[in-house]
């Protein structure tokens, strides 16, 4: 082994320190060679890194930030995070030495921010103590635990048939105006109503600002805003901000996941996100692939949705549940982006225009919707009460075509059609009225045991309301027990059925 002289080493270190001190204030600079459509091409900056933030001088003496996406041999392609109106060719560019990050923490709760964490609600600056990078790695295999706790949406059709678990990624997919955002909003409201403590993060990607404003007002009205964060981007924002919004929102939600809490994030919607990324990629001269999307459009969404997780007990057992939204064209779920996201997520809730206009709202297509992991996380009470629901509805759909020949059908088929019609009616639920566990369970037990079979279809909703009122007034303690979500006892079933028989008598035809 060669002798190490500490004296020599100390001399070298001191010389290195002096050298570094002398380079203070010496910044690496480049020059904008071309600019347009929010994309700048830059000469120089040999030490630049991918995704690094750069500062470009504007003609008015100010600066605008951009981040690097293309690292070419001779030039760098960067996407501006602001307007390109005041940036001209020849402008000086400086490296910042850091990647994009956003403020995170409880200080953001109740706020409406842009994807860079800047407040948009006029409530003053956000004094967050921590910042997370926008792009973060998803937790690894050993950091995770299987999804086992329910995330109640408050929508009976979902909680009974397509249950969602904490840490799951469940896609909401459907044409325009089919109630996709309504489902997401109801789920957020339900977290407040049921006091689950789940933090909501709503990411609006290129949504109309009027729609975002309405949503924020509703959240405030329902008292949920204090436990929510809204990351807003509108159609007039640069594509770079639309691209960043889901990642920024995810970082904000991950803070709660990593601090032993539960968070729910809604991406509204990833179709617009893919379109924004396509715009940026084409302007950056990346080779177009299918439908002109770049080759890494799958990775764009898979790395985002992989950040949803249920962490193991050593890491605090926090969770991040994702509800991405995809808008289809004419119900085509086999298009490029919808199939990508369907394959990434742990299930999908498919909304149909036909059902919506038939008055079946939420317009969930039970046949095409699925939850791949939620069954393990479903509340026991709802699971036992709604066990056969999916099968009953599937059989009803198969037989529905014969409904006009009802008189010629055998008694069993007639009974199935009868039950199916009533179940379909029962699962209709107005917006902003999420239901609790006891309400869902009691309603399903009553319907599955045939107590509603004699009630005319048009009176089902009234009968349901009457039953729930009766149960709450007469058996409050029992219903509170039912709310806990444990498996329904025989005694409890008898209580519900007795009440149901009594109430339904008044509605029977």
């Amino acid at each position: 082994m060669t002798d190490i002289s500490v004296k020599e080493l100390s001399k070298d270190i001191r010389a290195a320190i002096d050298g570094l001190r002398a380079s203070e204030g010496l910044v690496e600079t480049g020059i904008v060679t071309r600019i347009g459509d929010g994309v700048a091409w830059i000469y120089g900056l040999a030490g630049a890194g991918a995704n690094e933030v750069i500062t470009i001088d504007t003609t008015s003496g100010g600066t605008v930030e951009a981040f690097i996406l293309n690292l070419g041999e001779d030039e760098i392609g960067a996407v501006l995070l602001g307007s390109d109106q005041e940036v001209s060719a020849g402008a000086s560019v400086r490296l910042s030495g850091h990647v994009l990050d956003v403020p995170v923490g409880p200080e953001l709760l109740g706020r409406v921010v842009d994807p860079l964490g800047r407040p948009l609600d006029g409530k003053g600056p956000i004094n967050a103590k921590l910042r997370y990078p926008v792009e973060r790695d998803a937790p690894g295999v050993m950091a995770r635990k299987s999804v086992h706790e329910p995330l109640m949406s408050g929508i009976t059709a979902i909680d009974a048939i397509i249950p969602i678990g904490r840490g799951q990624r469940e896609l909401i997919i459907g044409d325009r105006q089919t109630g996709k955002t309504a489902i997401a909003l109801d789920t957020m409201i339900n977290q407040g109503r049921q006091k689950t403590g789940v933090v909501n993060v709503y990411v609006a990607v290129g949504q109309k600002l009027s729609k975002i404003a309405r949503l924020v007002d509703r959240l405030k009205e329902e008292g949920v805003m204090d436990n929510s964060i809204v990351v807003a981007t509108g159609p007039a924002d640069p594509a770079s901000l639309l691209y960043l919004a889901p990642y920024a929102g995810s970082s904000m939600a991950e803070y709660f996941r990593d601090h032993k809490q539960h968070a729910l994030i809604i991406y509204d919607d990833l179709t617009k996100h893919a379109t924004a990324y396509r715009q940026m990629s084409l302007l950056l001269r990346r080779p177009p692939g299918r439908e002109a999307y770049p080759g890494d459009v799958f990775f764009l969404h898979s790395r985002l949705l992989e950040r949803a997780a249920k962490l193991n007990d050593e890491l605090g057992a926090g969770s991040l549940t994702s509800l991405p939204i995809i808008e289809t064209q004419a119900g085509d779920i086999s298009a490029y982006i919808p199939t990508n996201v369907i394959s990434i997520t742990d299930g999908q809730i498919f909304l149909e225009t036909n059902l919506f206009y038939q008055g079946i709202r939420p317009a969930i297509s039970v046949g095409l919707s699925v939850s791949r992991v939620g069954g393990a996380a479903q509340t026991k009470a709802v699971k036992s009460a709604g066990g056969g629901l999916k099968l009953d509805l599937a059989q009803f759909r198969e037989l529905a075509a014969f409904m006009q020949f009802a008189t010629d059908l055998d008694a069993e088929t007639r009974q199935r059609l009868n039950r199916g019609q009533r179940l379909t009616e029962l699962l209709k639920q107005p917006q902003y009225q999420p239901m609790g566990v006891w309400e869902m369970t009691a309603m399903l037990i009553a319907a599955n045991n045939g107590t509603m079979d004699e009630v005319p279809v048009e009176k089902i909703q009234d009968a349901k309301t009457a039953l729930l009122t009766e149960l709450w007034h007469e058996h409050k303690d029992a219903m509170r027990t039912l709310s806990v979500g444990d498996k329904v006892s025989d005694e409890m079933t008898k209580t519900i059925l007795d009440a149901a028989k009594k109430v339904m008598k008044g509605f029977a035809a």
Partner: protein
Amino acid sequence: MAQRLSRRLVVRAVVEQLIRQPASTHALVRSFAAYLIETKQTKQLDAYLADITTALSMHGQATATVISAHDLDTKVVAALKELVSQQSGAKHVTLEQAIDPSLLGGIQLSFNGRKLDTTVRSQLNQLKATSAAN
């Protein structure tokens, strides 16, 4: 038509030629100019020259530019040369000087794609940006 190569490769070839055969600079300049015309890159001449300057500094010959509001005295020039020499590792430093009264005071030193800006103008601009942000 000449094949268009990456700027890095062209610069490397030019610098090697300059160092190996300094006597044949005239011929090199002519063929380089012809390449730029043939590949329609004449507008990128500044970028090529900057890259050549950087590449030369790696061979011990650095060129730096200093812009100041007033004439610099010899002590400051020597100190700047020393700084460039330290930072670039080049033994020979050529300092090109220019005067721009609009800088108001201080200096702007550029070499090898790096910049040291201690001008009063940039400090005022920074102050303006900070006060506008607040």
